[in-house]
């Protein structure tokens, strides 16, 4: 079989496409005008439930924090410090999440395939870096309920030991999760389950495709030398 034969077979469809493929100009115009919608609006529409839940949680945290400061104590205590840190971590996580979604949805496709696809894959993989920040809040869920009024002076030694062990183990868990939030762990089920909420499936695909492109580039070096 000759090379030209493949090309000639492929060319058979050109005449058919020219003759039978019709562009619906009305819909085309509608599509390009619809595009004017703000990207943030379409993002909110896409991830509505996640975004609403996140905002709702931040509002609860913010409300609890301000209520505690204005009605109970303006001094730093276990509750204020814990909730403040949880709030800050969640605000950071939320803003990263929105920024990230915005980037991936507004990528400029006008570039070479390898350049754009690698950029896109890297962006999708970077969601793991953003997600790891969320792990830092874990230990503070073991301290927010403590009060300066009764801890540690009014509790027994057993409770102090229990509290120290609990908080220490959560600190370790937090550190361990933070350390293990990396693309290399995508082949582990526990990790895939953990990042499922942050678009785990597309992150997996991005990783696979990234490897494919790396291979492509490796071939490139081999053939150039």
């Amino acid at each position, binding site marked *: 079989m000759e090379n030209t034969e*493949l090309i000639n077979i492929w060319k058979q469809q050109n005449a058919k496409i020219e003759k039978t493929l019709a562009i619906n100009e009305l819909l085309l115009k509608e599509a390009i005008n619809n595009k004017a919608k703000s990207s943030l609006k379409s993002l909110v529409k896409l991830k509505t439930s996640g975004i609403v839940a996140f905002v709702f949680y931040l509002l609860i945290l913010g409300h609890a924090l301000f209520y505690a400061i204005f009605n109970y104590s303006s001094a730093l205590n276990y509750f204020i410090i814990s909730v403040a840190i949880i709030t800050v971590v969640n605000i950071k996580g939320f803003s990263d999440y929105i920024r990230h979604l915005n980037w991936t949805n507004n990528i400029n*496709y006008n570039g070479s395939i390898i350049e754009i696809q690698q950029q896109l894959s890297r962006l999708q993989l970077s969601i793991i870096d953003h997600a790891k920040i969320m792990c830092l809040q874990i230990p503070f869920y073991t301290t927010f309920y403590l009060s300066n009024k009764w801890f540690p002076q009014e509790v027994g030694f057993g409770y102090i030991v229990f509290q120290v062990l609990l908080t220490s183990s959560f600190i370790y868990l937090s550190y361990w999760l933070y350390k293990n939030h990396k693309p290399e762990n995508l082949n582990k089920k526990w990790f895939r389950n953990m990042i499922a909420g942050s678009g785990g499936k597309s992150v997996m695909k991005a990783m696979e495709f990234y490897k494919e492109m790396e291979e492509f580039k490796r071939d490139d070096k081999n053939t150039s030398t």
Partner: protein
Amino acid sequence: MDKIDKSDIFLSVVQTNKGIIYKVANSYCKNVEDRKDLVQEIIIQLWKSFDNYDDNFKYSTWMYRISLNVAISFYRKETSRKKISNLLTDGIINFPDNDYFEDKETDLGILQQMISQLKDLDKALMLLYLEEKSHKEISQIIGISETNVATKINRIKNGLKQKFTKIKNQ
């Protein structure tokens, strides 16, 4: 360029090169409904980058870059598919009777099937090769060296030829 001018030029560019959009969508998307979504996504992305069109490149090169990039990203971007499906109820490009193009018995049908089974990047290379783009142009679109383009095309093409002959002889 005012807005009316711009959209008129855009419509005419799309009209002239509609085959590119069709062939890319057809090669990357087997499902007819998904294909309509993909065509719409490609057109929206073309329109979005039309302002930054660099006239050092041909319109067809620019269209291939965007169309292939969008098609390759299409399945990895779970979220956008829902958005696009809701945007419009029907396709911008009215596809002819499916069987007409996808008859597996014809040479073209066999070739289309084989192309659609290739890996994403190999598929892009073959599409451009079959469109008789020069190695230089292919390397600009894909982003690899001309030498690599030649090597890869050769390898994929030989595989396709063998497979094609095997199917024909069955």
